């Protein structure tokens, strides 16, 4: 109970009363640090109440390579987060505008991408292409999931191919890159958005800054791989503070579909 009453900012150390913090979109009012959010919280912040319907919620990872301790790690992650996998996909409405949505769960093995994450993203994107829905992805990830080896890496090509089919169906992909978006996810679907939004201060990159510094033997510039740096260098379309994020997304959805559906579309057969 007490843990939920107060929250301490990891960046500046300010203590926040939880209720204030929640109403400030989980952003530190002192230093502007954007806290990492779990998938249910994201959905609560973005979707109209009760509008989200999950797809493929029952998909679970197996242990195809017999990787040591992978099974217990999965069980532990499920226990901690209450989720079956590191992404939640489904269909929801944002201010009345319907969208297919994928939200990564950073507390599930660092939202790493294994076969199930790749499969769920692919299915969602294909579903959106078929049903003519825009896609919104809220991304955070540590990269490909090493416990599934080459099968994880294959998801990069698979998701990219699905997004190509979404493009052919002329529906937009909006990506929101949050802290951290790295590795194989950055190298696949995270960078394929028609509109790439990033949260203020988010770390976005393929290899981490430490690895790069050691490899090239040079000191990295200040703010390297941070959202604002990437925006300045043309890798992103916009960096948005969290309190304006929903508004920005709604504007984009509005532009791509001039008014909300008057009739609820048939999501499921």
């Amino acid at each position, binding site marked *: 109970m007490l843990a939920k009453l107060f929250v301490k900012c990891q960046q500046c150390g*300010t*203590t926040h*009363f939880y*209720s*204030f913090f929640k109403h400030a979109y989980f952003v530190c*009012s002192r230093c502007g640090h954007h806290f990492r959010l779990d998938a249910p919280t994201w959905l609560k912040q973005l979707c109209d109440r009760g509008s989200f319907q999950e797809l493929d919620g029952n998909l679970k990872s197996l242990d195809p390579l017999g990787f040591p301790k992978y099974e217990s790690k999965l069980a532990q992650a499920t226990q901690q987060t209450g989720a079956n996998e590191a992404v939640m996909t489904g269909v929801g409405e944002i201010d009345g505008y319907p969208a297919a949505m994928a939200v990564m769960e950073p507390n599930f093995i660092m939202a790493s991408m294994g076969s199930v994450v790749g499969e769920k993203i692919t299915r969602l994107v294909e579903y959106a292409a078929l049903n003519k829905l825009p896609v919104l992805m809220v991304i955070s990830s540590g990269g490909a999931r090493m416990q599934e080896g080459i099968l994880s890496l294959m998801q990069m090509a698979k998701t990219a191919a699905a997004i190509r089919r979404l493009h052919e169906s002329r529906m937009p992909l909006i990506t929101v890159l949050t802290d951290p978006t790295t590795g194989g996810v950055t190298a696949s679907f995270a960078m394929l958005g028609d509109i790439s939004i990033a949260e203020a201060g988010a770390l976005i990159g393929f290899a981490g800054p430490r690895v790069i510094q050691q490899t090239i033997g040079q000191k990295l510039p200040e703010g390297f791989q941070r959202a604002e740096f990437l925006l300045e260098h043309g890798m992103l379309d916009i960096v948005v503070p969290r309190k304006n994020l929903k508004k920005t997304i709604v*504007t984009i959805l509005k532009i791509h579909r001039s008014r909300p559906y008057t009739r609820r579309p048939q999501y499921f057969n």
Partner: protein
Amino acid sequence: MKFKILVANRGEIAIRVIRAAHELGLEAVAVYSEADRDALFVRYADQAVCIGPAPLAESYLFYQNILAAAKSTGADAIHPGYGFLSENASFAEACRVLNIVFIGPQPMAIRKMGDKAMAKKLMREAGVPVVPGSEGVLGSCQEAKALAAEIGYPVIIKASAGGGGRGMRIVSEKKELENSYNAAVNEAQKAFGDSSVYLEKFIQDPKHIEIQVLGDKHGRVVHLFERDCSVQRRHQKLLEEAPSPVLDEPTRETMSAIAVRAAQSVHYDSVGTIEFIYDIRDKAFYFIEMNTRIQVEHPVTEMITQTDLIKHQILVATGEPLSLSQEQIHKTGHAIECRINAEDPESNFLPQSGTLSQFIVPGGPGVRVDSGVYPGYAIPPYYDSMIAKLIVWGDNRKDAVARMKRALREFVVEGVKTTIPFHQKMLQHKDFLSGNYTTSFIAKMLAAKGDH
């Protein structure tokens, strides 16, 4: 009953609360920023704690330090004053969790009334009149026509995504509606990328009239009549009076009863104000919002009803039943309040900071000054520019106006420019004297002066 109140505010309202606490035999703790070290309210308090540097976000709004000050001084209650954290439901919740009495309404009432759309919806459900119009976006011009015919012209069409006057059209008669509707839709589409519009009755030149309510934790709510706050410049009130010179007795009764009902519908248990706009022509009034706190202009109500609102606010917050019944509340005479701001009316009300070389307040019968400054005090540039509230009481409006003129003449402030000369001019104005002035009075008065 013996307890300690921490006052989470500054200036005159902090002093007002400290005075009430002392009169109730309670101790008061002040919190202050580094810029307010020399302020009067810090001296008046029994204890004072510095809570941070001058900027608001680092002191008076930095609730963490305020709560820490409350805990370290052993305060049992926090009075938030007005502004700052007074209408922050999370702050009220935080106090509750820390076992500190928040001297204000329960958090849920703050939250409900703080959300304008929700407040309107709740009020409509409680049978409180709100400005009539479409409850959502208009579907077509036909719909607009039907609705306008129902509520009556003039109407105003506004863009849902709107602001700044764009996508807004006032329609005074039926034959203009179609053109205006199309123009508003086009303009909204161009300006905001969203063509949705809604329609409302247009109330030209309304008066701003508010009803003071007071509730306790036992379900009782009473009203203390109205205040007329139509003297506004850019939505900032400059002068308030009670009772309103234009309300007749039946309207006053209906309005007050509705305000009580509005407060009851959210289980209101503190001092609060229900704000209405009032159309002089057809004597209709519409709810605009509720302020869930004590207001700057509360003294005019205190003067005509002989009550101490802050004392009642403190007592009901501790759970005591209200000691006043509606039958015991009467109004006598007329009260006017002038806000004396350190602003230069000659240069667009530019806020002034500097040292007060002279500060002599008026006195005599029927005069009250609530202020937080003294001669030699340096006005810090970080905060609100109000330095004093001058309140007078008279047997009737004419007497009150005469007394206000006399008091303004006695008031000496040197070192900074103030709004005193502006008030003096305003009190001569025939529109003010007639009592029929509306919220556009100041704008018109300033425009007319510009014509010379």
